[in-house]
């Protein structure tokens, strides 16, 4: 039963979200014109279809316990080829993944304060180390040179205005920009 519930869980989540969004779609505010469908019609239609597909999968997985799924052509071709089997045997590192996601969120949160250059050096170095790469010289060099290179390419060549950060970190970004000749 637990296996069945696990298999059905993604569909249950999507189904609940679809039901909630259908409620939200019912509250879309618009000037109704007689005889014309409103802006809620399209999303509501999609949500109904989404709900139907999810209900089918929930009944199939949870109640009947059927595991057969009709695969898309590409999926079938790959399965028939037998070349995808190896992927299943790879070990899983959930902590590594969790660390990577947290690190990425921290980068996004701090980039506006630290500025692109400092935040990127820290992110690149920590990401490589977290990714079990242990050549510290390469990590240090590629983080610093990578952040510098990206800053130069995007601010000097492609003209993208990357975040400079707030004081005192912005002083570093501004100094670098002066050195690079970016005004």
């Amino acid at each position: 039963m637990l296996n069945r519930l696990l298999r059905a869980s993604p569909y249950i989540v999507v189904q609940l979200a679809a039901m909630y969004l259908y409620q939200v779609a019912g509250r879309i505010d618009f000037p109704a014109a007689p005889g014309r469908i409103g802006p809620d019609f399209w999303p509501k239609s999609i949500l109904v279809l989404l709900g139907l597909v999810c209900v089918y999968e929930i009944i199939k997985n949870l109640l009947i316990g059927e595991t057969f799924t009709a695969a898309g052509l590409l999926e079938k071709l790959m399965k028939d080829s037998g070349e995808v089997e190896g992927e299943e045997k790879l070990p899983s590192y959930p902590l590594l993944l969790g660390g990577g996601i947290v690190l990425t969120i921290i980068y996004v949160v701090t980039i506006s304060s630290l500025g692109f250059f400092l935040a990127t050096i820290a992110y690149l170095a920590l990401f490589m180390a977290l990714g079990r790469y242990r050549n510290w010289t390469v990590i240090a060099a590629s983080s610093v040179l990578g952040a510098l290179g990206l800053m130069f390419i995007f601010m000097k060549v492609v003209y993208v205005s990357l975040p400079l950060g707030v004081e005192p970190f912005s002083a570093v970004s501004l100094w670098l920009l002066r050195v690079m000749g970016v005004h």
Partner: protein
Amino acid sequence: MEALVHLGNGFLQVLQPMNLLVLFIGLVLGMLVAVLPGLTLVMGVVLALPFTYTMELLPAIILLTAMYVSGTYGGAFTAILFRIPGEPIDVPLLWDGYTMARKGQPAKALGWTLFSALGGGLVMIMVMVLASAPVAKFALTFSSPEYFAIIIFGLASVVSLGGGSITNAAISLMLGLLIATVGVDSIYGAERFAFGVPFLQDGIEYLLVMVGAYGLGEVFTRMEKGFAGDGTVADTDRRINTEFPTLAEMLKLKMTFMRSSLIGIIVGIIPGAGATVASFVAYGAEGQYGKRGKELGSGIAEGIIAPQTAATSSVGGAMIPLLTMGIPGSGATAIILGAFLLHGMQPGPQVFVTSGPFVYAVFASMFLGVIGMCIIGYFAIKPLVKVLELPEAVVSAFVVMFCFIGAFAARNNLSDLYVITAFGILGYLFEKFKFPIAPMVLGVILGPLAESSFMTMMVSHGNDWTVLMGRPISATVMVLAVVALVYPIQRQLREKTRRSGT
């Protein structure tokens, strides 16, 4: 005649030094991303997009299409030499390409690959030049029911031809269509699913969905596997050469070549199919109809020609609906459409009327791209496969950076970084629970087009949706859409019943 003049002018434009440089860079980048197992072709094209923001339209499209074309070829090197398919496209090359290499003929296998990529590429250019203008002219007669039907067919085939189960693909597609409705609706000005959040009121850019789900999501997925590629997989110091097949050998296999080119172009035109399906289908067709079909897998040239020719020629097939109807059928063409829109040009039936010379310049660049790709492939295999030695953790760290800069640069909005992180996590969850990403991305892209053509159709025809079945083109396309969805399910159910019966 006019087409030839435009094509000639197109060559002159592409031969400008800056355009040639961009073409060269695009070809090399396409091959690199195809060689690296951690990077997919679509991801590569996504990561290159921010570099095109400040370019003129022509070099921007040259860069992305060059990557698209050469990306179908580069992965063949590692598949043949090291049994490492850089892309799913290259999986069929393992069966005969790698086997031929193991039999002591790696140079010959590489030669057949080069010949196939060149031939498939040249045929695709020819078909594009000859077919695009008439298709665009025909598409000028379409109105909203035909457009809506074509989009529905496209979405149905994305679901039935792609990876993952059909129901998961349908869920992915509908989530994409829903994401496209976020923000202020263009007809009534009503706010939908914004929840009072300012950046949601502007809508969710499909670029963010693509960069997040394809780029960041893939990095997270590989991170969970501990970045298995540690850069020590291949002995790249071995001697690598390319030996061309003789003219007599080529002529002997002309039917394989023609059949596979045709399959590539047709499969490329069908939305959702793309180079991978083309490569597999052509290999399968060779097994069924080829003179030496039963010998496939034993290291014969047909097993190399069929998938490689079809993969490369599918690019031309995919470009036709993009240019003539503004409908992208694959991840890579969706990004190319994004580049068009970012530069203020909408591809579609009018494109030959308004921007004919530009379109022919794109064709010319693709022709030169095919030639250039083969020259680079001939001379630079060894340094190209050297990238396999790069540690995956280092490459992935920089992939994340390009994702962030690409997302940020589109609107200079830091909120977009949160959006792509969210879609990165969603992309990872999709991979984890075997939901394909492509339908969601195409849903986000085609959603607004589908909704606007649906609303226009309903308004113009008094809310009567049966108009779809009352017009010959839309009715035919709708029937095809239903067949595309129902046929694979019915066939697999029949297969299952037969298996359980025995």
